[in-house]
């Protein structure tokens, strides 16, 4: 089977010798099925990357990617985790330096879609805390919540989806991904609040995070996080 796999992944190489002479040409059907089906899985996973580079480029790139990175197991929803790192070093894409971060954002959207369900935090629970308790509390984020920060305008590029008439300004952007129902939603975080959201996402208590990010507006940030259902529970272990 090792020779079968090797022949599958190397177009132009000889089919495995065990195949009956009359049917040797038919080996190409399997070659084609493997390449086409895995390319389609990547197209499903990275629609924005695809729209940015165009269909022909994406297919050629997928052909190179899949020969370096086959799926680790049959769950195709997970296929493509190596894509951002692959794009970092894929020379033909070097003119689109934001591409790896776009792939990271799409990967996060996909993870969010399949993440475990969770009940969002009732804002009343936060309101019920004394100010002292509130500052020592950390937020536990829902399994479907993701945060992606980039030095590129990943949110604007993603929203434009390859529409070349829209020219995103080349500024850093931070995107919060939440899943209020079953569809992941992207929220652009204002630059002044990005550091605070990041600190909270990493589990810092509210007080500590707010004091290291005086530029940010804590009540705005809590409004966004709770409004989007990004948080499930409060962690007050530090307090007990």
């Amino acid at each position, binding site marked *: 089977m090792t020779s079968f796999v090797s022949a599958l*992944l190397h177009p132009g190489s000889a089919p495995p010798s065990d195949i009956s002479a009359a049917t040797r040409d038919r080996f190409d059907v399997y070659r084609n099925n*493997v390449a086409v089906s895995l390319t389609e899985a990547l197209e499903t996973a990275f629609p924005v990357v695809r729209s940015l580079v165009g269909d022909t480029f994406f297919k050629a790139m997928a052909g190179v990617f899949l020969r370096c990175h086959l799926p680790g197991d049959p769950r195709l929803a997970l296929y493509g985790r190596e894509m951002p790192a692959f794009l970092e070093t894929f020379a033909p894409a070097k003119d689109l330096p934001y591409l790896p971060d776009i792939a990271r954002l799409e990967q996060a959207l996909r993870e969010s879609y399949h993440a*475990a369900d969770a009940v969002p935090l009732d804002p009343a629970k936060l309101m019920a805390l004394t100010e002292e308790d509130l500052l020592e509390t950390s937020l536990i984020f829902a399994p479907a919540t993701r945060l992606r920060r980039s030095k590129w305008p990943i949110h604007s590029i993603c929203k434009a989806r390859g529409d070349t008439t829209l020219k995103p300004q080349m500024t850093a952007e931070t995107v919060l991904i939440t899943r209020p129902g079953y569809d992941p939603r992207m929220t652009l975080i204002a630059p002044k609040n990005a550091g605070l959201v990041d600190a909270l996402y990493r589990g810092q208590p509210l007080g500590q995070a707010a004091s290291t990010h005086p530029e940010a507006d804590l009540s705005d940030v809590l409004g966004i996080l709770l409004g989007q259902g990004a948080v499930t529970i409060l962690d007050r272990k530090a307090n007990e």
Partner: protein
Amino acid sequence: MLDTLRKTLPNQAGIGFKSQHFQDLLDDPGPVAWLEIHAENYMGDGGRPLAQLRELRARFPISVHGVGLSIGGENPLDRDHLARLKHLCTWLEPESFSEHLAWSTHDTGYLNDLLPLPYNEETLTRVASHIDQVQETLGRRMLLENPSSYLSFDSSTLSETEFLKELTSRTGCGLLLDVNNVFISAANLETEPQAYIDAFPTDSVGEIHLGGHDEDEASTPRLLIDSHAKPVADPVWDLLSYTLTQTGPAPLLIEWDTDVPPFAVLRNEAARAEVALTA
């Protein structure tokens, strides 16, 4: 170990479930009496796929059809994947579990295609032990599906039907007879589809698959591709009628996986299957 008391699929038409048909199925499934899902699409932690499946489970008999276990592979079965299948079958309690006589995983990873294997004593022993392992792990009898073939191996010493028959007697597994695959393989390997059905161990059939195929116009000799991208072809319906005279009534599935049409089209295919069953 094998379950005789478990509920089984009805001898009626079913369709392969696609998420875009979810609401149609809840509103009015018409002749669609049961659903088949691809196991690997329901191995996430949550979200819409599992939510839809929980709701469908409450209303339809369900068949779990694995596409990635690589039962025909040279390597030991992936225990993690088997554990995921067990988890799915435990909470879902499907009426049926089936997989393919094929392989898809080797040392370098998962190839996402149903790849062929030679039929001989060595592969028979290996596949039988894999089926034993699946049935023991899942605590249920499984069905094994005949593949669509594009080529043959010099090292095969058994016909496909002999191979399948021997597997059923060694493991007690049942068979999923894909009539479209029989038609495709017969065209590609220049054999007679009815002769294949005649030689098939029809007593073991627990489910029948029907799907569309494509013809590669550029190829001589004739080459049919198992695409699941169009309606079931007329000669495949004819072969189904012949098959049903051998098997008797069986759960009949319409598969459509690529360029999936509106539900109404699948409903019509299911209605045609229902007619074939009652003819």
